[in-house]
């Protein structure tokens, strides 16, 4: 089932690349494919037992000498992320194109990217993980470069090279990690159980450093986040949604899956440093976002802030091999919810930003005003997403953040207390954004600004309904994650 979810988008991408289909047919095929992949994941979810380790596994030998195989499977960490990604891909693919050129290739690249992204979350083989990690870069590179606007090619190249540099470090670290095993294996389950670098000194530290830098670039954390704003600004809205919603999660997922789970002891040694990095990202991201005059840049920097919360949760969860179990569980659950919530919320925000571009080709906040009158649905959607993003209770972001804060405080009180300041800045910056776009006087050029279309409304309604559902009834998601099982899984 999982293999199907990965390969189906690839196959459909191949079909679209070669078959001379019309734009409409390409779109229909792409949406259907993404929906089918999501359906496959939902079927896996229906059979999923929370807290019971890896499930829905499948293994086909590939390079036995190196211990490489086609391995797939999900646990409480990867399943929510895969489901969220699957949903977000349906949303992004179904979202109307901003510039309707080369539709067939556009959808082909999107499906290619979906295959790579789902593959990354679903694979249990470290080498395949790396391959999917790099493939996702390629897909995003072309989506930004070809269908972006402004200095799209420059931004795409910067994104590509920057994250590729990170992925090289990850590759080195992965290889170094795998070389500690005998017989050689790239099987994630074995690596988690074996803890190959446990009890080692500097080498383990260097491996962790490589992983952390690599994943920090992808996440992104301060100070290696500067590729993010230009990539977002020049990308089409739907690609931005995927970039923020899915691709950034690869960094945090890698941190959990590889750095934290496979190198428990080493991670615990350096967890405080990672936590401090996360704290700086939280504060820096929100403060810099506050000063942005460009709608997309503002949202982009809030990603730095939110992913900082997620990394803080991860650092707390991995801060010790034993002790503080309840707090660490809570922090990890919070971090996972943050990833899902950020994917849905920021995905929705970037889709809306794309809708602005499609209508006005303008992201300058100062050029907007008074749109609540003629675009009330847009106002409602963006308002809901903004309040979710600033952590209003009853919406998904709060569920994540309150758990991260509680867990973090039990381990590092000062860090958690300082991280709280991010909440206040986020509130100011999102309210400022809403105020400038939707309220006050409307500039005459915006008089015929049209509200969201029915397609756009339906897509956003699904994403935001989930944001509300997680906010008011988080138990189903928290149970699926079952962080306690993850912390103890593989002998903590």
């Amino acid at each position: 089932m999982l293999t199907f979810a990965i390969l189906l988008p690839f196959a459909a991408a191949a079909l679209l690349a070669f078959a001379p289909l019309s734009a409409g047919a390409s779109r229909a095929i792409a949406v259907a494919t993404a929906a089918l992949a999501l359906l496959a994941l939902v079927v896996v979810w229906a059979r999923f037992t929370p807290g019971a380790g890896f499930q829905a596994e499948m293994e086909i030998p590939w390079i036995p000498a190196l211990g490489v195989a086609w391995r797939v499977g999900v646990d409480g960490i990867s399943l929510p992320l895969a489901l969220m990604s699957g949903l977000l891909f349906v949303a992004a693919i179904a979202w109307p194109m901003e510039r309707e050129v080369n539709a067939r290739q556009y959808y082909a690249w999107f499906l290619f990217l979906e295959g790579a992204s789902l593959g990354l979350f679903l694979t249990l083989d470290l080498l395949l993980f790396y391959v999917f990690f790099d493939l996702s870069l390629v897909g995003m590179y072309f989506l930004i470069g070809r269908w972006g606007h402004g200095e799209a090619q420059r931004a795409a190249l910067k994104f590509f090279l920057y994250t590729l540099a990170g992925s090289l470090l990850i590759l080195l670290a992965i290889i170094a990690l795998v070389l500690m095993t005998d017989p050689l294996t790239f099987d994630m389950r074995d690596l988690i159980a074996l803890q190959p670098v446990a009890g080692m000194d500097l080498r383990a530290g260097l491996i962790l450093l490589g992983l952390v830098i690599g994943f920090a670039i992808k996440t992104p954390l301060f100070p290696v986040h500067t590729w993010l704003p230009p990539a977002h600004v020049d990308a089409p809205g739907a690609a931005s949604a995927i970039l923020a919603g899915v691709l950034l999660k690869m960094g945090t997922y890698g941190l959990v899956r590889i750095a934290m789970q496979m190198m428990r002891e080493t991670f615990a040694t350096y967890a405080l440093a990672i936590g401090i990095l996360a704290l700086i990202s939280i504060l820096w991201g929100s403060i810099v976002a506050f000063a942005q005059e460009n709608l997309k840049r503002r949202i982009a920097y809030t990603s730095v802030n939110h992913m900082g919360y997620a990394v803080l949760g991860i650092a707390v969860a991995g801060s010790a091999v034993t002790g503080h179990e309840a707090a660490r569980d809570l922090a990890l659950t919070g971090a996972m919810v943050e990833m899902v919530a950020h994917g849905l919320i920021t995905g929705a925000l970037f889709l809306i930003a794309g809708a602005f571009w499609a209508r006005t080709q303008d992201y300058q906040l100062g050029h907007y005003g008074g749109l609540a009158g003629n675009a009330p649905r847009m106002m409602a959607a963006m308002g809901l997403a903004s309040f979710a993003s600033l952590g209003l209770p009853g919406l998904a972001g709060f569920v994540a953040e309150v758990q991260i804060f509680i867990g973090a405080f039990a381990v590092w009180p000062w860090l958690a207390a300082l991280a709280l300041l991010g909440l206040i800045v986020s509130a100011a910056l999102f309210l400022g954004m809403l105020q400038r776009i939707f309220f006050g006087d409307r500039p005459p050029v915006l008089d015929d600004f049209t509200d969201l279309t029915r397609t756009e409304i339906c897509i956003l309604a699904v994403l935001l309904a989930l944001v509300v559902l997680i906010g008011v009834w988080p138990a189903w998601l928290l149970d699926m994650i079952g962080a306690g099982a993850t912390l103890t899984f593989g002998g903590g």
Partner: protein
Amino acid sequence: MLWALPLFPALAGLALWASGDGSRLRLGAMAGGAAAGTLVLAVLAAAQEWQDGFAWGAGLELHLALTPLSAAVAITVPAVALAVLVFAAAHEEARGLARLLGLMLIFIGAMELAVVAADLLSLLIGWEVMGFCSWALIGHHWRDRANMASGRYAFVTTRLGDLGLFLALMATWGGAGALDYAALGRLEDAPLALAAFGILIAAAAKAGQGPFAPWLFRAMDGPSSVSALLHAATMVAAGAYLLARLHPWLAPAPYWSGAVIALGLFTALAGGAVAVMQGHAKKLLAGSTSAQLGLMFIAVGAGYPGVAVAHLVTHAAFKAPLFLSAGIAGEAAGTYRLREMGFGRALPWTAGLTALAALALAAVPPMGAAWSKEQIAAAAMHESLWLGLAVMVAGALSAAYAARFWWLAYGPGGAEPEARPRWPEIAALGVLALACAALGLLWLGPVQASLPLRLPETRSLEIAASLALVAIGLLAGLTLARRETAPEPQAADWLGLPALIGHGIVRPFERLAALAAHLDDAVLDAIPRGAASGAQHIARGGRRAWGAMQADRGIINAAVWQVAAMTRALARLSDKPGEILADGLPEGAARITGRTGADARRLQTGLSHHYYAIFGIGAALAILFVIFGKV
């Protein structure tokens, strides 16, 4: 069942909002019906001692429960809201009325959640949703951007206080491993101090105490009925309620009671002074709200949370009609400048009913508010003589601004009103004003005995002194009102506090953010830019060297030749897989090469080779490492 109490008004509010604008009668009936339903639910919940819970997940649970104290507030909120909603349906602008009433109902639901919460997480949820409602309601007339800015100011200020609640939540869980109120009792030392002072900050922010007071002024940009609800029944009142509710667990924290008293006393006196100086009808009342909440804080700090809640109820009964009355007078004058009013002759009913509420604000017996104020004075007197006297002075200030408000708004000015109140507005005002008078029953011994409160002992000498000060205050207020000619002093704007916050916090933060944004672009981004230009230099150097080698084949030795050949072979080897992977197609390599090439050409001719080369190097490194590792 207790979930019904917060959820019913909230869902009814959403439904009302969704139903859209329409006739005032329909909207008013729906909103009033929802508030009445909430009132019935509150009474039932109090009578049958409902409780409830909800499994949040991840080991956290929400608990709802009622104590006698919270039951009193839970009933007061919808009772006051009922009158305010009826007034709003008749008084406020027809455009956006459904949204206004719907949001007010959601506001009531959030307040009820905060009232019935029995754990810090439920409390935080209700607490913050109230903040959202205040933002949306203060900015109700959104076409004027200044209103939204005020809403944002209110939200951010109160959220600053909410951070205290977050801190308390974190400290409680860290110290006791649970979030219910009883867990507060298991805290010691640092966690207890953090929880106690965190909650104090949160309460002070909502209640407009001390440095947080200015947001109440900005909140005056909202419609009058919103102000009435916000000050009497929700949000602001929640601050005092929270301290009273949690007093048993927080009082043991060292210095906590002293801090509560200090904060309350400062605000009671400063707020009173500000209200005496204010020339804006609603801001005068806003200053008085801060001052009255300060009195409630003093009661809690002195160890009489029940007295604080009693004053909360009497305050709700007189503050709501005063704001409604200010709305009527503001509409009649076309401005909220008190000096432009004076509708005693033109609006006799309004004037008369407002007088009842103003007498309650001034704490003139036999109004119920006078009784609760005297109880606070007695409680303060138990703490110390000076504190007791200070409370009496604050009472004199209340009398002064109450008298001044009424005289300027409804004194014999003979001004012709631009608009007259409709009958539902008068009715709502009247019901609330009569409730003020009815609360006078609190002066009766049997009624007092039936209250589940611990009351301080009152001495008749103290009451006499206090009443004398009230009389002096009334006279002073009337005198001031008659001589209302001098321009309003600058201190009337909360003693310059808003300006101080603007210059000391807001603007420096904006500058800091701009600087950070600049650094982010100029410095942090320079690292990768530097790396990129460095790589470019190396590449250029390499190209030059290669060119030199090509030019001078004579001196190429065998080793270099081999390296070059190997590089080419490696490049060939890695180029193809790179492109194949890039297109995601495992077959038809030639075709794909052409296609990807075309894609890449459209992008940026030539550059695509660089990253394929890097991709290749990555693959090569992988191979090398695997080989090395094996050996």
